[in-house]
């Protein structure tokens, strides 16, 4: 397909025409005469967003999400690539499982899907999975997400073993002794009052402190998933200052939603790590602005209703994120003047593509580049309606709140994957 977006602004402020033909951005003069024309006046063209942290639930829980529905939600949110976490059934812990996911993606996906491989067999934290055979199938990011790689020796070995493959270990930092399986509420006045098992901030930051030292010691590449606390930010800041090869991620929900949301025991707001208090939210925003935190990862975690209609401490943790991620980041970072559009592109597209070693994603919008881009109306807002989601699940924590609703058009490899 061919498309001319006229008079559109780029993240750096320049206004230009963007011509798309056969999957690439081309000179306007190369467009066929019948190319579709889109008026870009008042709109922004950004590189397609890249999510390092998505749960697609297929194979295993197709009632909650599939590759098709999850990537439709991704396209709706402006994403052209998502990394699929391996906590599936079966877990993505072999080359064959990766190959199967690649087949599913080739058949059903509305954006690029890159499988993340498990670090340990069955994600149980005891024995390394076949990391090299997964790397041979294209895996660059390895994670036991949902479970912490708690054993120091396993973390050391994973960081070391992956070096020849250039793989990164993406850690779900949660000390299982300080924050066990029942921990579900930020340990605070609120957990004490509600009688909910506390999830203390140090259960995250002490694991990251250990891990960054192991990363320095081994020379391996380390990524801290969904950091949620001011203490973790301080550890990452220290590690980067020392030149350790670490990166960090924050979710949209940890940038916006605070602990008091759980006061009614609404399990929509149960997430792991839990929603934190305002001083942590402020530290995360500051760290995202100054680059201590490299990327926004959605941790899009669809759950079927029957897995949420339980008491708070046993309901499944997790919330949707792909469709509202950009809106949240625009509202808390751009509209507040803390971040410009170029920095947003770095955090939501370029940096995640770099960390995940996806050379054809997260690139600037220029002639000759792959046409992965999203057209954004930065002023449009809407009240979020969970029923309107492309996801199969409805655990949307933004339901009923007013947020930017910016995505007008998403193009992946030059094809329209979403149009308002």
């Amino acid at each position, binding site marked *: 397909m061919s498309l001319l977006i006229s008079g559109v602004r780029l993240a750096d402020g320049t206004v230009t025409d963007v011509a798309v033909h056969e999957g690439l951005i081309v000179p306007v003069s190369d467009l066929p005469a019948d190319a579709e024309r889109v008026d870009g006046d008042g709109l922004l063209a950004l590189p397609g967003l890249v999510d390092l942290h998505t749960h697609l639930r297929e194979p295993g829980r197709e009632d909650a999400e599939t590759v098709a529905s999850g990537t439709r939600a991704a396209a709706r949110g402006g994403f052209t690539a998502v990394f699929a976490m391996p906590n599936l059934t079966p877990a993505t812990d072999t080359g064959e499982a990766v190959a199967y996911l690649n087949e599913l993606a080739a058949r059903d996906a509305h954006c690029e899907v890159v499988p993340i491989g498990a670090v340990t067999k069955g994600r149980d934290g005891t024995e390394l999975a076949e990391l090299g055979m997964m790397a041979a199938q294209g895996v660059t990011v390895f994670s036991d997400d949902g479970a912490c790689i708690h054993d120091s020796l396993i973390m050391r070995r994973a960081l070391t073993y992956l070096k020849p493959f250039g793989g990164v270990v993406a850690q779900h930092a949660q000390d299982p002794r300080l924050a066990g399986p029942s921990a579900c509420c930020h*340990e605070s*006045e609120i957990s004490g009052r*509600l*009688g909910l098992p506390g999830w203390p901030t140090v259960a995250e930051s002490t694991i990251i402190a250990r891990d960054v030292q192991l990363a320095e010691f081994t020379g391996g590449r380390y990524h801290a998933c969904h950091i949620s606390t001011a203490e973790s930010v301080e550890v990452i800041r220290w590690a980067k200052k020392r030149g350790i090869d670490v990166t960090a991620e924050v979710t949209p929900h940890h940038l916006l939603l605070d602990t008091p949301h759980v006061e009614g025991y609404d399990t929509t707001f149960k997430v792991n790590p839990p929603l934190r208090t305002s001083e942590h939210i402020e530290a995360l925003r500051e760290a995202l602005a100054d680059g201590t935190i490299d990327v926004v990862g959605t941790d899009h975690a669809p759950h079927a209703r*029957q897995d949420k209609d339980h*008491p*708070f401490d046993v309901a499944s943790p997790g919330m949707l994120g792909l469709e509202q991620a950009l809106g949240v980041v625009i509202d808390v970072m751009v509209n507040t003047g803390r971040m410009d559009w170029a920095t947003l592109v770095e955090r939501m597209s370029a940096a995640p593509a770099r960390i995940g070693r996806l050379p054809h994603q997260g690139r600037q919008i220029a002639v000759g580049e792959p046409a992965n881009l999203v057209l954004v109306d930065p002023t449009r807002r809407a009240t979020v309606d969970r029923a309107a989601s492309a996801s199969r699940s409805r655990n949307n924590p933004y339901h009923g709140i007013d947020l930017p609703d910016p995505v007008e058009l998403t193009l992946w490899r030059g094809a329209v994957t979403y149009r308002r």
Partner: protein
Amino acid sequence: MRHLLSAADLTHDDITSLLNVAEEMHEVQRRPIKKIPALRGRTIVNIFFEDSTRTRSSFEIAGKWMSADTINVSAKGSSVSKGESLRDTMMTLDAMGVDCFVIRHNSSGAVAQAAGWVNAHVVNAGDGQHEHPTQALLDAYTMRQHFRDAKVADTFRGKRIAIVGDLLHSRVVRSNVLLQRTLGGLVTLVAPPTLMPTGVEHWGVATTHDFDSVLADADVVMMLRVQRERMSGGFFPTAREYAHEYGLTAQRLAHLKPSAAILHPGPMNRGVEISSEAADAASSRVLNQVSAGVAVRMSVLYHLLGGEGAA
């Protein structure tokens, strides 16, 4: 009143009315034939997702003495493991036309969640580590009776109430603190630092780690059960050390005012948080609490169900 979920939902007038009606119910309890027709034709389902002897039988007796049809449903084991969600369990029973659910659940907040899914009235008979409002009411009832027997003013304002034990995991302490916030009692919480709830400094009560410092002034000492499995969690080293630091021993008993009441919601760990000397002392009101439990629960059920189109 539609539900009784939290002690915080009760006004001073609500509490006074609940305690006064409980007194009338207590009279019924002393009759040879303990049956009044107040709730004839009403159906009460006691659904207990967690083991309980005294609370469940107390509610069952309360309902039966008021001529309600009471049914016990034991739902032990999480609904998750049975593959049914709490919502489906509750909506299924509600569809049978139940008038009132009395719910005990091992998860904090589960009773409030359940109340949102049913048409019937709901009484919280204890949710996780959160609240147990009928326990706080029966404690208040017992204290009031004790003040009268001791010939002191039968109001709570200014009374010194020490609550001692595993506060972190206790729903009883949360409901008592909330109820006494309304009634005006001066609560001091006593526990080792490892068993103090996070954020207790926002509860509007005094706290101390020194049990001895509160003995002389206390009007009521409420001892809470300490579970032995807390030792493996590293909350305290041994039962012996716990008893030494935080138990109501015979020595500490001797430092209480003669008019001070001793309460314990049970079941008691004699020799750990409470000595036999204290449990069996003349000032012990432990069995009065049990007896008050039936009267208070009759009153609660009457307040929820008695007014509306009773048969």
